[in-house]
């Protein structure tokens, strides 16, 4: 057969080889798939470690471990809180992320805003929701423009404990 028939084939072969060479150098060596197989988990294995090594910001003040992280230093405040109604709220929800706070006790960015309290204490007419069990106010009529913490003690929110 004449060479003009074969010539396009050479072009294709060169193209494919060039692609494979490029791919060989460009794709990282650790590409592979775990026990999930090729369809669902073909990936760069080292990326799993990259995600694992990301720094955490929040410590452990969550409901499950009940502020043990904070009580090591701030025992009395935490004790007051856990006995009162707001004891279920993790410290870091208002006081901000505190992962490195014990080592570098810089001032935390405490959220004292009205909006923070209104997240739970806005009165919504949802009688079937758990929200209804929380005392609520109408933010448009209840001391507008004043921060809630001016009158209410967030650590001891009972109305007798008003400032």
């Amino acid at each position, binding site marked *: 057969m004449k060479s003009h028939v074969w010539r396009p084939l050479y072009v294709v072969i060169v193209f494919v080889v060039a692609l494979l060479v490029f791919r060989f150098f460009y794709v990282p060596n650790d590409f592979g798939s775990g026990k999930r197989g090729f369809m669902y988990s073909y990936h760069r294995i080292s990326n799993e470690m990259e995600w*694992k*090594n990301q720094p955490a910001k929040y410590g452990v003040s969550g409901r499950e471990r009940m502020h043990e992280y904070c009580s090591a230093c701030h025992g009395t405040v935490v004790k007051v809180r856990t006995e009162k109604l707001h004891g279920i709220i993790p410290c870091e929800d208002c006081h901000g992320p505190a992962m490195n706070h014990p080592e570098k006790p810089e001032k935390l960015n405490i959220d004292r805003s009205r909006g923070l309290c*209104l*997240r739970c204490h806005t009165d919504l007419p949802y009688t079937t*929701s*758990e929200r209804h069990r929380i005392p609520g106010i109408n933010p448009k009529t209840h001391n507008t423009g004043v921060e809630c913490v001016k009158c209410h003690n967030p650590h001891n929110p009972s109305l007798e404990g008003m400032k």
Partner: protein
Amino acid sequence: MMERREFLKKCILIVAGASVPISALTLIDPKKVLAANPDIQWAFLVDTNRCVGCGFCVKACKTENDIPLEANVSRTWVERYVYTKDDKRYVDSPKAALDGYTESRIDLGRGEFKEIDPKNVGKAFFVPKLCNHCSSPACTQVCPVGATYKTDDGVVLVDQTWCIGCGYCIMACPYAARFFHPVKHVVDKCTFCYHRLSKGLDSACVNACPFGARKMGNIHDPDDPITKIIMNERVGVLKDEFGTKPQAFYIGLAQEVR
């Protein structure tokens, strides 16, 4: 003089003996193998009955994972469902409930709001949502470059250095759990706080929830309290009909919650 039969027998014996490697003769201790590769399968449990729509989970998630607070994208969000007595249904999630629900009016989108007469409200509830970390994730299947994947412990992750931002996975996800990160310009999604799990911490949203509406556990551990709830109580999943086998289980689902 050796007979041919004898010779062949001995040959087969020697070859068979030599082909057994030393490592095959060491006894395997199942406990050691399990400790090296722990059988972990992370699953999420949402108790919608306990959610009050405070949005602390969204705030904690965005802070922990560097998602811009004001951008209208989020790895997790809380939806509000309001059913009126004249049988109308409303769903909204303003700013992904980052600031909670501090108004009774429903956000209809495009700057329109609907105030519902409190006497007309039938039932109303809140539903937290996040990536379901499906067992057969449609999103990882469609990725053309191998940038998103399911780990062996059941978490769906995005390799953000390898992602080309084509958005196939955003389209493929039936739960709209993926979004385009406005700063990194690649796809971002809930990671179950993989960096926190590997440090033995709860994920940021589970940690932040005051009411215990969000929980997480190892579904392959029969003694795990969350696994016990999933196994023993009536839980549901979202959009079961898509066949993606979601691993986020919900207590108290309604027909409208999808």
